[in-house]
């Protein structure tokens, strides 16, 4: 089974969950910018969460499927149609052989990246443990480059016992997704270098809306519309950084590192976006505004637990199972906070 790409739109790449274990060799994490939507798309079509999918930036893609298959489009809503008929996002759809999937433009006031998953996953070669494309390094995905019109993406074997009829029609509940919205609000934890940026830096970062500059990509977003000044000159030796880190160069315009971020950096870190809210930033295009909101570590962990519980869903289970798992997770949080458990060390 294959996907024939008639048009990739402004930028489309093959992405999975990336290479998180190699930063000591300078290899960035890469992978889907919106890891939640990527995993949800995979789960909807019966794939494992780490299968490779097509990350479509800005919509405008046209793809033909040569055999009957199950597909799902999650993330941004680009008004997708299958053979000219509207199909729902965040849902698995049975596509007859020869079907054409079209993605239009943004149909809501938010949305930057859609994920097209097909049962079996995009079978790009494994490079350094992942199928993700890392464009600056020119490896992963389709020869390390963006998907082009005319590309044919092979689809892997489907899991044994795959039942297209049972999978098709599954819908990912809107209540079990990140809080996507225009002018996304991403929660941040204070960074380690507030001594040279000043304690007010965090308040400054969280006070005003920031515009994602045109000079933004999968490596990071440059933010415009304000300044977070250095209160004293600070020259840091290079240190490890990762997606979510908010760096402040001497010009005071913050940079949020995203999926393809370099593994080391020398600018002071004002804040770190919590991992559970990175999908919200991933859905912002240049020109959109984003906001930050301070939070505490427990909140970050709870948000991550909630998302993990949502992602525990499998198409044949229904959502009751994952919601009871969620209740279990949050119960254990209360115990971990040490208030109710008398015997914590």
């Amino acid at each position, binding site marked *: 089974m294959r996907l024939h790409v008639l048009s990739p739109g402004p930028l489309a790449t093959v992405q999975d969950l990336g290479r*998180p*274990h*190699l*930063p*000591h*060799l*300078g*290899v*960035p994490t890469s992978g889907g910018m919106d890891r939640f939507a990527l995993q949800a798309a995979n789960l909807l079509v019966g794939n494992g969460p780490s299968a490779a999918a097509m990350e479509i930036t800005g919509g405008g893609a046209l793809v033909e499927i040569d055999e009957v298959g199950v597909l799902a489009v999650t993330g941004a809503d680009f008004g997708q149609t299958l053979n000219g008929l509207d199909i729902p996002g965040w849902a698995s759809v049975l596509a007859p052989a020869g079907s054409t999937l079209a993605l239009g433009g943004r149909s809501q006031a938010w949305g930057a990246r859609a994920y097209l998953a097909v049962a079996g996953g995009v079978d790009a070669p494994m*490079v*350094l443990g992942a199928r993700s494309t890392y464009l*600056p*390094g*020119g*490896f*992963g995905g389709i020869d*390390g480059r963006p998907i082009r019109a005319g590309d044919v993406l092979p689809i892997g074997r489907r899991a044994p016992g795959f039942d297209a009829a049972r999978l098709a029609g599954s819908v990912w509940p809107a209540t079990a997704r990140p809080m996507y919205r225009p002018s996304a609000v991403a929660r941040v*934890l204070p*960074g*380690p270098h507030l001594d040279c940026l000043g304690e007010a830096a965090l308040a400054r970062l969280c006070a005003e809306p920031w515009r994602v500059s045109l000079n933004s990509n999968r490596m990071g977003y440059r933010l415009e519309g304000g300044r977070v000044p250095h209160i004293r000159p600070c020259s840091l*030796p*290079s*240190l*490890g*950084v*990762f997606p*979510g*880190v908010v760096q402040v160069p001497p010009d005071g315009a913050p940079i949020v590192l995203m999926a393809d971020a*370099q*593994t*080391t950096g020398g600018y002071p*870190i004002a804040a*770190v*976006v*919590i*991992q559970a809210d990175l999908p919200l930033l991933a859905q912002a295009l240049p020109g959109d505004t984003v906001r930050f909101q301070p939070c505490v*570590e427990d909140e*970050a*962990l709870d948000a*991550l*637990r909630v998302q*993990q519980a949502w992602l525990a869903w499998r198409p044949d289970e229904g959502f009751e199972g994952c919601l009871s798992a969620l209740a279990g997770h949050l119960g254990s949080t209360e115990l*971990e906070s*040490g208030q109710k458990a008398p015997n*914590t*060390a």
Partner: protein
Amino acid sequence: MYLGLYPSCYCVGWRIVADARPRTRRAAPRLILRPYTRGVGLDKGFEPQFLPVGETGLLVGPLDNAPALSLAERLSERPIPGLVACVPAAASVLIRFDPLVVRRAEVYAWVRSALLRGVGATAAATAPVIIRARFGGADGPDLQDVADRLGLAAGAVITAMCEQPLRVMLIGFTPGYPYIGPLPPALHLPRRDTPRAEVPAGSVAIAAGMAGIYPARLPGGWHVIGRTDAVLFDAGRRPPSLLRAGDWVRFEPA
């Protein structure tokens, strides 16, 4: 804060002279390390701080580069479940972990125990990786300029580069890019005023007291003094990176 003094840990290079057990499970431990060998200018010691970087990161520093590399090695000897990555850098170690698998307090305890096992102030020299490079000419367009600015002959710059083994202090910037140093003081120069839009793969460059080798054609702000045919990074090779942080390299004129 309670500063309980523990029996000193006789380790290579540094010993822990003060070790405050965290009062709460969430608080970071406080350690003070001093050099085992005291001497003029040698006993400044350091207090590596445990700085959270988001809910998935822990930055341990400041540390000198040698103890940072040594700590990263100690940590990788006994990895814990939930460990995602460990990135030694110029003066710190970044630890990434999955907070739903391992709690921050457990990560603190793990790093503390690695520090207690001893981190080296100086690196045990291992056989250096030889990097044969052509210096000057089209391969090293900045060599003469560098020599002029340092007040040396071009040949003396090459000699200083090749004289002694140098350490890979960290890998960063781009896959496989080694920050090699520290260079002899005679070779210290700030970066170029105007970065180049493109530097060819294999370029050997210096700036900020360090040398680097460009694994691919990339923009670069360092002074390019030579070029090697060594392949620094190849995603299809095992291991993909020719060098790792902590390796020794020695440049040789080709």
